[in-house]
Each structure stands twice: as structure tokens, then as C-alpha cells.
């Protein structure tokens, strides 16, 4: 079981706009949380703040009773991993794009399984594409699905995903959300997703809305 705590998180832009106002997240696995809110309300900023990819003020980052200070951000990110918006990829083959995190110092204890890759690629309907093909042959939607495969292979305790379903057909979006939900259940993990699809948000364990810098619980109808 994973206990995750992050906050209070505050983020003020250079022009003085308060985007995040002392948000405090406390979650226990297994759980899948969906965050949505109006465009530009700071959803991506919140996820980036959790992993320390901006200059937000974050008082505490804590996982399973252990504190992660500024100097241990890389280790924190190896356990609390963000799937970035627009699913960026590295220049290289599809296989290299899935394998590269396992070469980092913080990935040394994890093992990369090709069988697991093939299984997940089939699940997201990318099984027909050879792993040795260059990443440039993938479309935007395919890159999003590859990003989800990369995250699931990496298997962090907390997986954050910034609009992981954008550009996907409804059936594919359902299937990918199902994969994320199964991951949380089967691996006893926490998944926090940002997306707009209310239809899918209703299937989450918790549905939060970010507005005016604070998070509110939404009751699914």
C-alpha cells in the first residue's frame, strides 16, 4: 500500500496571479483520481508542481512515510512519475523510447521486460508496429498510447498523467483509461489523471475539480 502526501502547493505567476493556493493532496493506494477544471485553471501546473518541474512552493513531498526534499527530486520522480502533456518522445526507435528510463541511476533496480512491452503494446492496439521502427512513424494518438505504455512499464507508486487520452477515439480512450484503472488496482498504485472527459471521470475513485486555485470534490451524478 502506498501513502502519498504533497503540499501545501502554492504557485504564483511572475505577474502575481495566484494559480495554486495552498493545495494539499493526501491519497492512499489503490486509487484513481481524476482532476478537471476550466481551461487554463492550472491543472498542468499542479501536476508539474507535484513532480517539481516548476518553481512552485511545495512544503512537503512524502511517500510511504519518507520525505523527499529538493535535493532528492530525481528519486521522487522515479516513484511519482508524470506523463507529460502531448506525449513527448526521444529521438530514436520505439523500443528506445520505452527502454531509456531503465538506464538511469534511479531505474537500476527495475527490470525491463520485452514480454511485458509486447503485452502492453497489444493492449493499446500498437502490437502491429515493430519495436525497431523509428518513433517518427507514430501519429499523435499513437504517441499518447506509447506514453501510457511507457508509464505502465515503469510502474511507479504514483502515476500522474496530463491529458493522456487527448486525441484518442472514444473506444481507445475508454480502453486506455481502463488500463490505468487496472494498473492502480493490480499494482496497488495511485493514478492521478487530468482530462476533460466527464464520462470517464465518473468511473474514477475520486473526481476533483480545480477552480480559483483550489481543489473541490465533485459528486458524480
Amino acid at each position, binding site marked *: 500500500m502506498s501513502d502519498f502526501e504533497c503540499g501545501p502547493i502554492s504557485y504564483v505567476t511572475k505577474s502575481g496571479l495566484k494559480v495554486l493556493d495552498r493545495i494539499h493532496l493526501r491519497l492512499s493506494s489503490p486509487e484513481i483520481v481524476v482532476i478537471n477544471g476550466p481551461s487554463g485553471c492550472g491543472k498542468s501546473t499542479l501536476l*508539474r508542481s507535484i*513532480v*517539481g*518541474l*516548476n*518553481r512552485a512552493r511545495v512544503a512537503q513531498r512524502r511517500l510511504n512515510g519518507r520525505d523527499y526534499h*529538493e*535535493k532528492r*527530486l*530525481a*528519486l521522487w*520522480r*522515479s*516513484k511519482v*512519475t*508524470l*506523463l*507529460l502533456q*502531448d506525449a*513527448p*518522445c*526521444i*529521438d530514436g526507435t520505439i523500443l528506445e523510447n520505452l527502454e*531509456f*528510463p531503465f538506464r*538511469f*541511476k*534511479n*531505474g537500476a533496480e527495475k527490470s525491463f521486460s520485452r514480454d511485458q512491452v509486447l503485452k502492453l503494446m497489444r493492449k493499446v492496439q500498437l502490437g502491429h508496429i515493430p519495436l525497431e521502427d523509428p518513433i517518427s512513424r507514430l501519429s499523435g494518438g499513437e504517441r499518447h498510447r506509447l506514453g501510457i505504455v*511507457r508509464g505502465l512499464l*515503469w510502474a511507479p507508486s504514483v502515476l500522474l498523467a496530463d491529458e493522456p487520452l487527448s486525441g484518442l477515439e472514444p473506444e481507445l480512450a475508454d480502453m486506455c483509461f481502463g488500463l490505468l484503472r487496472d494498473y492502480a488496482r493490480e499494482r496497488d498504485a495511485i493514478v492521478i489523471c487530468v482530462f476533460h472527459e466527464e464520462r470517464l471521470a465518473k468511473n474514477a475513485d475520486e473526481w476533483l475539480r480545480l477552480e480559483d486555485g483550489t481543489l473541490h470534490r465533485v459528486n458524480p451524478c
Partner: protein
Amino acid sequence: MAHYIELTPVDLLVAIGLIVIAASISIVLKLGLTRSLSIASARCMLQLGAMGLILKKIFQINTPLLVLGWLLIMLVFAGREAVRRSKTRYRWINLDTLLTMTVSSIVAGGIVTQMVIKIHPWYDPQYLIPIFGMVFGNSLNGICLCLDRLTEYVRSRGREIELMLTFGATRAEAIRNGARQAVRTGMIPIINNMTVAGIVSLPGMMTGQIVAGASPMQAVSYQIVIMFMIAAANAIGSMSIATLAGRRLVSSHGLNLPGQ
């Protein structure tokens, strides 16, 4: 008596005739280079003339403090020139280039003057000033190329760097590919120079020594030492600036690109 043919002011006037030929071509072909050619020639004469007078004085006085002071001035100017030529700007760029040039020139120039040539006294300006001048001039080019390549990498592949950071890469791991490419770029000119040395062109120092009456084999030996010294200075300089600039451009909080 000198072993070379001494030049008189009249000889220099004849040489100016060569610039007149170049300027005439510019006028005939309407290249619009006459003015800049004239200014460049005048600056070249004045700067070298002043340098000649200063060096003459330093050689006469010959004290370690004066020699080191002159090297420091050369170092500061080289550092400023490296920043001026580079397309990159960030907050600590002046300090980084100065540190880099200091380290690379002390290591490479120090080994050559004190352990290879073994100059005596250790500050002999006849050797120290021209040799360090060559280190500064060449490190400057390497640093500029390296810095521009690194910034270009961070700018064009910033998303890849962020992607690596999100998967637990340390800052050094995330910038490693870019730094490697930048160091390689910084070293290309000296590798090219070493490859064609003696075939396509006779390097400047060797030419100078042969004209001054040194035996060709001695001139070759000096040139080899100088080229290896420049290669080492470029490698140390490129590696240092890539490390320092890498730390400024990518922090553990992501990208720190100038203008963002």
C-alpha cells in the same frame, strides 16, 4: 645578426599595396567591402603595432608580475570575445567562460611551457605570451561553438530533457546527450586542423619559425606540441563550459532557457 630578412617600413608600405589591390577588386565588382576592408587593415596595423611595442617593453622589463598581468589582460579579453561571439546569453555566462578559459589554459599551457619546453625562467615572456595567446585564441573558438550547440540542443530538444527528468533522470543524465554533442562540436575545428596540417597548409607557428631561421624539424616539433596543446585546451574548455552552462540551462526544476 638575425637569421631572417628584416622588414623595413618601406616593405610594409609595399604590403599595403596588396590591400589596395583587394580594395580595387571590391570597387570594380561593387562588393561594398572597401570601407570595412580599410577599417580592418588599419585596426590590424594599429593593434599589432601596439602589441609589438607592449611586448618589446615586457621583454625588456621581464618580471613575472608584469608577464602574468599581461596574460590576465589577454585572458579577460578572450573571455569577453567568447561571450560576444556566442549567440547564447545567460546570467552567469561571463563568469563561466572566464573560469573555463582559465582552467583550460592553465592546464594545457602550463604543461607545455613548464614540462615540455621547460622554459627558464618559468615566466619567460618570449615563450609564455605567444603560447598562451594561441591557447586563448583557440579555446575561445571551441567554447563559442560548444556553447551555441548546447543552447541549440536545449532549445530544440527541451521536451526530451523534461521527459527524462519526469522518469527520474538526474539533471546530468538529462543533459548528457546534449553536452556530448556540444563538446564534439567544440573539438571539430582542431581535429580538422590536425588532419590537414602539413598537407593543405603549413600552420602559422611553423611557418613563422621556418622564416625566422629555425630548422624545419624543430619547427615541426614545436608545431606538434602546440597542436596537441590546443586539442587538450579545446577538450578541457568544451567539457568545462558544457558542464557549467548545462547546470545553468537545465536545473533539477527543468529548463532555464534565457528569455523564458
